[in-house]
């Protein structure tokens, strides 16, 4: 399926250093037409630098930026068909909303009436009809965000670049604008790169995520892949909480469907999926999400895929109860959703944790 799509933007082996510090160590990726790809990673991982390289604001040391078949790596920003929405919005303080939106069109020497009608069209796209004559200091933060977006879209760029566009908004507005940006992006089908340090924002807005750390791509994949099949420990720990558990593959069944794993607290039978490349006797790391575990009152004897433990503490949060369970010498976090209908456990209760067969394993 993937290969049938045409890449709108291709990054080939991009390297970038600031002085002695190498911030991007060979980045290669493809972004499909109409896709929303998010660069995400902790601060200092190089995501903004990578975006600025695509926009032409930061020169690259080596590598290529191919936009729709043309290498644009050496062009200044004003000659690239990519448009950016800046973190600070960078609206021109001495121009009105409409002048800001029409700025790029004016530079392209569009006739006056065409500019006006295009600006109107964009204002209605971002739900700001009738506010074109306002000055920048007389509109709200969310509206400034919309103007910045409209201004970037005015010239119908091939790729839209968004540099942490929601970081200056308060929490509620952030969610609203996130959905709105996604709506507009899907409606006009524009290829988009979105930069954020917020994993949840990245998960909820993207078609695919490109997770960067230390200047290296850790994984590129859909939100589902990133969460359910993380490529390494960093990715697993980057989105959501995870109980890591060391184990060893004792054997794999003949049909290559089940792997038998030993851990310090008991043995597990896990699904062995197509493409899993672990071998017998491999040391592995299990990625156990808190919400995949289930709790039950202690049963004597040992059943498959269970650990025995004691409730150490719990935190009631309405939609879920977060239990901290002591399993021999270590703590595991278990999220029990819909606590209304579930058995509630108290501190000191002896319980059994069941680990699902679908638990993801990383090769060490």
């Amino acid at each position: 399926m993937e290969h049938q799509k045409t890449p709108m933007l291709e990054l080939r082996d991009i390297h970038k250093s600031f002085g002695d510090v190498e911030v991007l160590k060979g980045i290669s990726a493809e972004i499909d037409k109409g896709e929303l790809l998010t660069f995400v990673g902790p601060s200092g991982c190089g995501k903004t630098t990578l975006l600025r390289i695509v926009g032409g604001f930061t020169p690259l040391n080596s590598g290529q930026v191919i936009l729709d078949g043309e290498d644009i790596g050496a062009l200044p920003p004003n000659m690239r068909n990519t448009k950016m929405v800046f973190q600070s919005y960078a609206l021109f303080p001495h121009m009105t909303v409409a002048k800001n939106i029409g700025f790029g069109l004016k530079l392209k020497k569009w006739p006056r009436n065409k500019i006006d009608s295009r600006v109107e069209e964009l204002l209605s796209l971002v739900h700001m009809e009738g506010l074109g004559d306002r000055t920048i200091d007389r509109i709200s933060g969310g509206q400034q965000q919309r103007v910045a977006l409209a201004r970037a879209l005015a010239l119908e760029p091939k790729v839209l670049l968004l540099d942490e566009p929601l970081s200056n908004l308060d929490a509620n507005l952030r969610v609203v604008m996130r959905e709105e940006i996604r709506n507009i992006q899907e409606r006009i089908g524009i290829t988009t790169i979105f930069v954020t340090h917020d994993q949840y924002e990245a998960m909820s807005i993207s078609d695919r995520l490109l997770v960067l750390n230390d200047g290296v791509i850790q994984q590129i994949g859909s939100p589902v892949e990133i969460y359910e099949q993380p490529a390494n420990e960093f990715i697993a720990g980057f989105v959501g909480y995870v109980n890591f558990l060391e184990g060893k593959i004792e054997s794999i069944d003949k049909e290559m469907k089940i792997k038998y794993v030993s851990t310090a607290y008991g043995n597990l039978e896990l699904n062995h999926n197509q493409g899993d490349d672990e071998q017998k006797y491999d040391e592995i790391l299990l990625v156990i999400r808190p919400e995949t575990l289930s709790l039950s009152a202690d049963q004597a004897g040992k059943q498959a895929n269970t650990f025995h433990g004691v409730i150490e503490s719990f935190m009631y949060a309405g939609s879920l109860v977060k239990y901290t369970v002591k399993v021999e010498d270590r703590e595991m976090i278990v999220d029990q959703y819909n606590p209304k209908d579930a058995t509630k456990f108290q501190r000191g209760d002896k319980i059994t944790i069941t680990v699902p067969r679908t638990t993801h394993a990383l090769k060490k």
Partner: protein
Amino acid sequence: MAEAVISGATGKGLWYKVRSFLGIHLINIFAGALFTLLAIFLLYPIFSILIMSLRGDEGFTLEFYKEFFSYNFYYWSLFNTLILGTVTMVILVVVGFCFAYLTTRGPFWIRKPLKIVALLPLAAPPYIFAISLITLLGRNGFINNLLNLNFNIYSWTGVIAAQCLAFLPLSFMMIENVLNSLNPSLEETASDMGASEFRIIRSITIPLSAPGLLKAALLVFVMTIAEFGNPAILGGRTPFLAPDTYLAITGEGDFNMASVLSVILIAPCVLIFILHNYVLKGKGYTTIVGKPTAVEYKEIAPGIKIPFMVVAFTVGLLVLSSFGVILLGSFVKIVGVDNTFVIDHVLNTQSNIAIWNSIKVSLCAGLFGAIVGTLLAYVIMRGKFPGRQFMEMIALSGFALPGTVIGVGYIIAFNRPPFLLTGTIWIIILNCVFRFVAVGVEAGISKLHQISIEIEEASADLGADFLTIFFRIVLPIMFSAFVVGFIYTFMTTMMSLSSVIFLVTPGFDLASVYIYLTAQLGELGLASATTMKVIAIVAVSIGILKVIAKKTGLDVSKKQGA
């Protein structure tokens, strides 16, 4: 795909390449051009002075320096200048402290009026006080006649008094700034622990503000020894360096000796610049973060209040009466001697021609100064080439160096090819542009600090090239800084004397030079009337500056340097 890439690149042709080259390098080209201008109009004149002071008929020589230190006259000149600087400095730190203490901690009714009086001399050229002191205490002076005194104002006392009044705003502004930045709760704590107010001043206020006071003192010292007008008019037979430099050229045509004197004048400036930037850098106590909180009024102990007020009121009265005397002197025949009303002084043709010349020169200097200043600020802030700090330093040096020195540098540097400018109006304009460009640069830099660089990147992103960004985005946003640079250069040029006096040609008088000459000749009515006109023009300029500062929030600390 590969073919498409190639044809895509070649298809856009030469113009495409030129544009993308300019987009990246135009700022560096600008930087190169500006650096060349700075090199020609600031570095080269200073360099010429150094060469001239070391070059005799047979090449390199130290003969002129030997001569300087062996002649009693020059030796005394140096000594007097240093004494003048030291005495003025000490007096002004004390007076400035009295003013600043009262405006920051005194009763509310007194704060605003005292502040206005302390800043009033900014609106006038420094030599206004020489003229007013002569009117009051000269041989035919009002007070001398009234009390039948035989006081001689053409003396040390006169020069020191005039210098103290002229540089009061500088000292006051710096000390007030220091006192404002002290956290009031420190003084309150000391008081809470039982310290008397005198004790608090001695062991809390002064120690905490010591680095700031020292900086103020050093700056007053440098400005005082560089000042030309007051010692030239009031010095009488007492030699001082700045007027002697002028005399060495106009009286004896001795450019070598004038250069030596200039180098001697620069030395303390350089020394203090180094002290200020390297030794005192970072020294000082910031005891308050963010905006200074208003100090609540508490009753100042009478033992402190009364002496402080006596000092401040006496000096304040002198400032006010000086302005009054100038106003009066413009409209009466001779103040105190023949008090009949005359309009002749104000209507004098030569005076008006001089004013008109000054306005023309100042408008040109203001315009060019603002353009160069804005461009420099932009290049320094946004350029990515090495040596930007050096460039900023040169740009600011025009302000720090004594006007006399730059004047001498200009006549030496520009009286022969390749830069033959002597005798033209351009040499005066360029001199003022580069002496005062610092303010435009600083205003521009502070404005650019307020603008996110993303705004420029956004316009590049939307397709604007360097020139479009500069003219459509940067310039409109920086316009307030441009206007500040323009007005500031305009008004300092209006008042400037020390440098331009070397550069004017007979028959082309500037207001400041005309005032100086008429004061020398004892034509106090003409000097007063011309000064009054200059003050009026400067006052209007300050008013405009204030409005801009209020509207744009651009804070340009006023500086003195006429």
